[in-house]
């Protein structure tokens, strides 16, 4: 009796591992091994083509601490995240609540809002780059006809990072909205009916039923969005020219990593920058995991 239970446990264990094997393999090959290699590489002065690496200990990290452009990029990244994350969540949530009702053309609107997600980011960035062009762009032409002066959307150090963030918001709203829609469908209708009988208005319903009920989805969106916004890169690379005076105040940590690692071929230093980013994202995520107990309601 004892023996057969043991073998059954054993069998279950093997099958369990068997089923997660494909995911595990993917994770190990595509994520974990590269992470370890990146950390390892950050202790080297790297040669071209991944050869001739020289061990330099903590020198890359020492340079990193003294490098003001790294800290400026970190600030830029925070600025980007502070605009992109809350805006994309709030707007997406409002849209989701509005599109969750029965209404004419509901699928049409949902499709429209989701479209930016389907288009390749490079194409999105190229189109916005032209719209924002200070000399030939549509936006400034419009501003001119209204009588407001031209704005250097993509070369004014004060605003460019927010301009890029707005495009980020625009392109991610649809995705967040679909996640929220899925969350909203899960809320039992009886809650709303019961509250209606008790005389609650739409806003009370939203804050006392919808928000708490959707908090697990909200938590998921928040965590993934923060991580994604800390990794912003493609929009900046495509929209802001290398010679733009706004670049130092716009480039993100990942952009800086790209420049050092791939343009200037200093992969060791690039790795150190990425490790810094990894640590920051981990700290923020851990804080969020702890904080979630205060506001996320699981049933």
């Amino acid at each position, binding site marked *: 009796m004892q023996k057969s239970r043991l073998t059954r446990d054993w069998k279950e264990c093997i099958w369990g591992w068997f089923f997660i094997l494909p995911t595990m393999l993917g994770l190990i090959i595509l994520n974990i091994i590269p992470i370890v290699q990146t950390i390892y590489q950050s202790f080297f002065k790297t*040669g071209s083509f991944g*050869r001739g690496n020289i061990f330099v200990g903590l020198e890359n990290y020492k340079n990193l601490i003294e490098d003001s452009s790294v800290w400026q990029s970190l600030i830029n990244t925070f600025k980007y995240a502070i605009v992109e994350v809350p805006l994309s969540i709030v707007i997406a949530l409002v849209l989701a609540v509005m599109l969750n009702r029965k209404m004419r053309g509901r699928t049409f609107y949902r499709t429209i809002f989701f479209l930016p997600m389907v288009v390749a980011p490079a194409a999105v960035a190229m189109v916005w780059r032209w719209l924002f062009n200070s000399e030939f762009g549509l936006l400034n032409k419009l501003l001119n006809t209204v009588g407001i002066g031209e704005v*250097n959307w993509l070369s004014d150090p004060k605003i460019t990072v927010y301009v890029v963030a707005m495009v980020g918001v625009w392109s991610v709203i649809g995705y967040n909205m679909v996640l929220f829609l899925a969350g909203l469908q899960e809320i039992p209708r009886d809650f709303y009916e019961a509250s209606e009988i008790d005389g609650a208005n739409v806003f009370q319903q939203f804050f006392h039923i919808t928000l708490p009920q959707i908090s697990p989805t909200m938590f998921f969106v928040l965590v993934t969005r923060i991580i994604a916004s800390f990794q912003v890169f493609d929009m900046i690379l495509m929209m802001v*020219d290398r*010679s733009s005076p706004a670049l130092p105040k716009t480039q993100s940590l990942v952009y800086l990593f790209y420049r050092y690692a791939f*343009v*200037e*071929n200093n992969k060791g230093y690039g790795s150190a920058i990425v490790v810094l980013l990894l640590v920051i994202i981990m700290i923020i995520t851990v804080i969020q995991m702890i904080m979630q107990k205060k506001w996320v309601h699981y049933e």
Partner: protein
Amino acid sequence: MKWKKIVSVILAVCMVSGLAACGKDSGKEESKKTDNDSKDVELTVAIWDSNQEPGLRTIMDGFTEETGVKVDIQVTTWKDYWTMLEAAATGGDMPDVFWMHAHQIDQYAEYDDILLDLTDYVEKSEKIKLDNYPEEISDIYIADDGRVLGVPKDVGTSALWFNKTMFDEAGIEYPDETWTWEKFREVAKQLTIPEKDQYGLAMKPASDQESWCSTVYAYGGEWLSEDKTKSGFDKPETLEAMKLIEGIIQDGSMPEYSVLSENDTVALLESGKAAMVFLGSYMLPRLSANDYVRENCDAAPLPVGPKGRCSTNMGLAWSASAGGEHTEEAWKLIEYLGSEKAQIQQAELGVTMSAFNGTNDKWAAYEPQFNLQVYVDALEDDVIYPYSKNTQVWYQMILDKMVSVWDGKRPMEEVCLEVADEMNAYLAEE
């Protein structure tokens, strides 16, 4: 229960037939590989200039006709080209044949299993004699240990493009070979009419190869010492030239820096915003395709400095991957592209100036309405565009720092001295 069985049978049949289909496919591929005839070989060729693609396509078609080897040209923009090539080299999957640049060759030359060693091929070849190309260009692509790593493709000099209509309106004579850089500065100021949104000049930090790098040499300065160990940015002659550039910026003869940074200088010429821009000879396909430029613009020699006229000259080379599957065919293609016939064709088609000596009168004749002869003449007083082993590191640093001068934030001299210091530090590491 019955349904479940039927469904599972159908599924099983689908899966098996899928497998069978797979088997067929792989069988086909194998048979392809075994008869490794030249006819079935397709070479991948990587370039970065889409302007040159149509012309090169024509030339490569000639190669395919002669040998049966097909060629697939892949264009990656300059910005991503070296990232692509470096990653491909690291992963051992480079294109068969590709463009090589002086700024990058030394890194690739460091190892002997990345670029195909062409020394023996060149020695045995009847079509390729390195004496046929300018020595200063072919030398770039010969490694320190004597390996030949590339066959010269082209040469590239610079000229001043100007808008004839704007000169006529202002009643100023067209630029000619007597123009000094000082005179140029004066005229740029005169041609600036902000109310009309017209500026005398468009030039940005990254226009260095076409403009201000040449200015430095025309003033007797230098970017880099001849032995490539010291920066020349702190030399008095260099500073004098760079201060002239600073003067042009301060004159307000150029559009606001934000406009410059968001647009190519050539686009500002094409849209009638800039009266003068400096452009390299490789821009010809784009310029001759533009109606506005054809109607209003022409080329003139670069202005002269105290040390005479000087234009940077940069020539690319064709290199091949050492680890490629079809190195023999790759060499055949390079041999073809470097041959007199293809080089003349490249010039005749207006693709770009060819490296083969004496072929460029044909290039200058490609578009008789433009004074293209100035580019050919510039080969007489040229200086090779400066490069060292790890050029990208200091070159990018220079461009980044120059932004603050163009932007009006910092004085030129201060920035140049800073550039010299940092450049020396980088060069010491090489």
